[in-house]
């Protein structure tokens, strides 16, 4: 078992796709680095924290990107964002079986905040344009830094999300909420609270994550293969149905304060036990109870 959580973005790419199949575009030796970081006396990375390329997955061609959370929390700057946009546009030309995004990001990189914000907006538009042309985009989220900020929106624009319970998905990080609204609103040091609010299990129960897997690269791989045949659907019918689901979520859960209340409302017995379950047992325990 090889931990997805512990691996670097490069290690994930090499272990997740068919052996030896990964080929990188604009590799580190091209030194396409952020000029803005150097201006602020901050070390840059040769890949600007995101690796993009092509690979095969179970023999099928895919385009892939992996964000490196260890570099500035995987945050999006000008170059980082443009690499993702370029990859998504390439997919419109090439029509691979799917695009896989191994996300790990705190959102916009503050050192180049405006460029990062616009970059995220361009990624959003590029994902939507690509899906409109029928190429599915699958997100894998199980890294140490989670997926927050604009990348949290991007993830939810895609066709499917695979998470481990260690993975986190949200918009504003717990620290940001605590700093702005106080520890009573969100105690970011209460990690059990953090994980049951934004962690993989809650996202799976809400129906936001399509698969929940153990923290194991091969489990992510298997889940990704399974999702390759997802058909993007941005039709009025599909979005109307999604709208109804989201409306029902506010209605049913909008007044609840804690994930445990939501899980209980979903009919889970002993919701307090869910965090302790391994992925298989968890899936079995919540079978038929997801929103």
């Amino acid at each position, binding site marked *: 078992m090889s931990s997805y959580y512990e691996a670097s973005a490069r290690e994930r790419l090499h272990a997740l796709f068919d052996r030896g199949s990964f080929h990188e575009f604009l*590799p*580190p*030796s091209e*030194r396409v680095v952020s000029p803005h970081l150097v201006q602020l006396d901050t*070390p*840059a990375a*040769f890949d600007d*924290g995101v690796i993009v390329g092509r690979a095969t997955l179970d023999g099928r061609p895919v385009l892939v990107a992996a964000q*490196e959370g*260890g570099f500035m929390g995987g945050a999006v700057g000008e170059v980082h964002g443009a690499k993702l946009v370029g990859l998504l546009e390439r997919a419109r030309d090439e029509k691979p079986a799917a695009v896989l995004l191994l996300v790990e990001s705190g959102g916009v990189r503050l050192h180049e905040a405006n460029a990062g914000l616009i970059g995220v907006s361009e990624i959003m538009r590029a994902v939507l344009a690509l899906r409109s042309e029928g190429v599915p985009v699958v997100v894998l989220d199980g890294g140490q830094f989670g997926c927050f900020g604009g990348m949290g929106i991007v993830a939810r624009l895609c066709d499917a999300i695979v998470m481990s319970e260690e993975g986190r998905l949200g918009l504003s990080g717990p620290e940001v909420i605590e700093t702005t609204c106080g520890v009573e609103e969100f105690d970011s040091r209460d990690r059990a609270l953090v994980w049951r609010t934004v962690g993989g299990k809650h996202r799976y129960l809400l129906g936001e994550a399509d698969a929940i897997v153990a923290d194991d690269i091969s489990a992510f791989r298997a889940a990704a293969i399974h999702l390759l045949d997802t058909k993007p659907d941005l039709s009025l019918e599909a979005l109307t149905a999604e709208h109804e689901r989201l409306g029902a979520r506010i209605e049913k859960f909008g007044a609840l304060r804690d994930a445990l209340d939501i899980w209980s409302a979903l009919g889970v017995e002993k919701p307090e036990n869910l965090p302790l379950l391994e992925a298989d047992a968890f899936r079995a325990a919540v079978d038929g109870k997801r929103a």
Partner: protein
Amino acid sequence: MEKLTFEFFGGAPVNATRAPALVGVVGSGNLEVLIEPAELGGACAVEILTAARGFGATWKAVLDDFFTRHKLADVRIAINDVGATPAVVALRLDQAVEDFLGGGA
């Protein structure tokens, strides 16, 4: 930040068609090492961008020992560092060489 450069001579040239290798991450207490073949007239050139100022002598000592272990020529090594300790630097350098020489030509 500080930029440091070092050159070493007297090593054995590396096959110029070898693929570059990158190890490590530019994160706190860590560094990335990019190693690639380069026409350098027999030199092994090391270029470092580090967030920690004033450790030139330490870098030199670490690299001297590295070059004693790995006599490379016509190789360029580029490092982005965020205050990694010498132990971590030496480890990443060794890993980079292993990836670089172990990988396909």
